[in-house]
């Protein structure tokens, strides 16, 4: 797990560095590209480990981008995880910081305010679509779908701690009820 695999680390770093600035809408949008590069091209990890990385990171706590760290870990251990995360985060983070600073100092500019305010309805629609696409299918998994709908209403209308909902989902799922 902590073997010295500098070649693989550089390869991973390079792949994710190249993808970073294309990840508009999140790293998840680049999954097909990553598969082509890491699994089909360089055979760094197996197809099962590739899809397993995404599934585990989706369920575990933290930002979903951490699936990139898991791919690196399956490819080349701890160093691979670090190299992959650095690669995917460095360019997008630098750009985001530069742009947000430019925006923050001009927050009272008409054009900046128009941009931020103008994007919000679109952002709401896009995020709603993200949630919708993650919803279980009501025809195949009716009880999971009902659970998701109930959670949506509870989150919208109450201030209950979200962690309780996650715990309830884990228990219901573990007992085979959803």
């Amino acid at each position, binding site marked *: 797990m902590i073997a010295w695999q500098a070649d693989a680390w550089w390869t991973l770093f390079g792949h994710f560095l190249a993808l970073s600035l294309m990840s508009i809408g999140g790293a998840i949008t680049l999954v097909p590209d990553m598969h082509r590069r890491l699994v089909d091209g360089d055979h760094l990890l197996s197809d099962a480990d590739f899809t397993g990385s995404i599934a585990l990171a989706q369920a575990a*706590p933290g930002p979903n981008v*951490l699936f990139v760290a898991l791919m690196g870990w399956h490819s080349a251990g701890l160093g691979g995880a670090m190299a992959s995360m650095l690669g995917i985060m460095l360019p997008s983070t630098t750009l985001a*910081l530069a742009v947000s600073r430019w925006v923050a100092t001009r927050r009272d500019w008409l054009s900046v305010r128009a941009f931020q305010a103008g994007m919000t309805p*679109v952002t709401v629609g*896009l995020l709603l679509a993200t949630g919708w*696409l993650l919803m279980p299918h009501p025809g195949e998994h009716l009880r999971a779908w009902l*659970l998701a*709908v109930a959670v949506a209403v509870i*989150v*919208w209308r109450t201030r209950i701690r979200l962690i309780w909902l996650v715990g309830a989902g884990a228990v219901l799922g573990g007992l085979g009820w959803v």
Partner: protein
Amino acid sequence: MAETLAPQDAAPARPASLTELFVAFTQLALQGFGGVLAVAQRELCERRNWLTPREFIDLLATAQVLPGPNVCNLSLMIGDRFFGWRGACVALAGMIAAPMALLLMLAWGLGHASQAPEAAGWIRGALTGIAAVAAGQIIGTVLKLSAPLREHELGAPACAALAGIAFAGMVWLRWPLLWVLLGLGGLTCTATWFILRRRAALAQGGGQP
């Protein structure tokens, strides 16, 4: 280009130190199963009062347009707002460090525990339940986030229609994300710009808006 408007209302509270910032982001990231957005909104707007709902959705709109994970961009912007570049680094580190360590330990453990099929079935069931909850959390949070749109410059009905078009475009018509951001986003930004400019002109002319 450099026409300005009156400053907006600011949130009542702010983090006292970099340590508080780091702890806050670590805490919220570790509670964010299946994505951090829902818990970020809850912690930052409702529990800690570091941002108003309007500020949150405005920052999120910028974070969404830029490459990179939107919640990571968001943490960067919030950290930068309070403590400059050091705050940006600390907030992002809080968002990533602990969940990444946990995830790698989990993957390592699962790699060693794959010989226990009964436990594996239980875990798979639990993950299905968590995934369903995560999807519901995103939808509930977005419905909550849409509340400031009632006071939006374009008016609530137009905002609902625009959000609906973006939603339908992504879910049913499968438009590429970039089209939605540039096309629809460009349109709404331009419309908002005209409305804001007219309001500013009215206010400057001394007339009642």
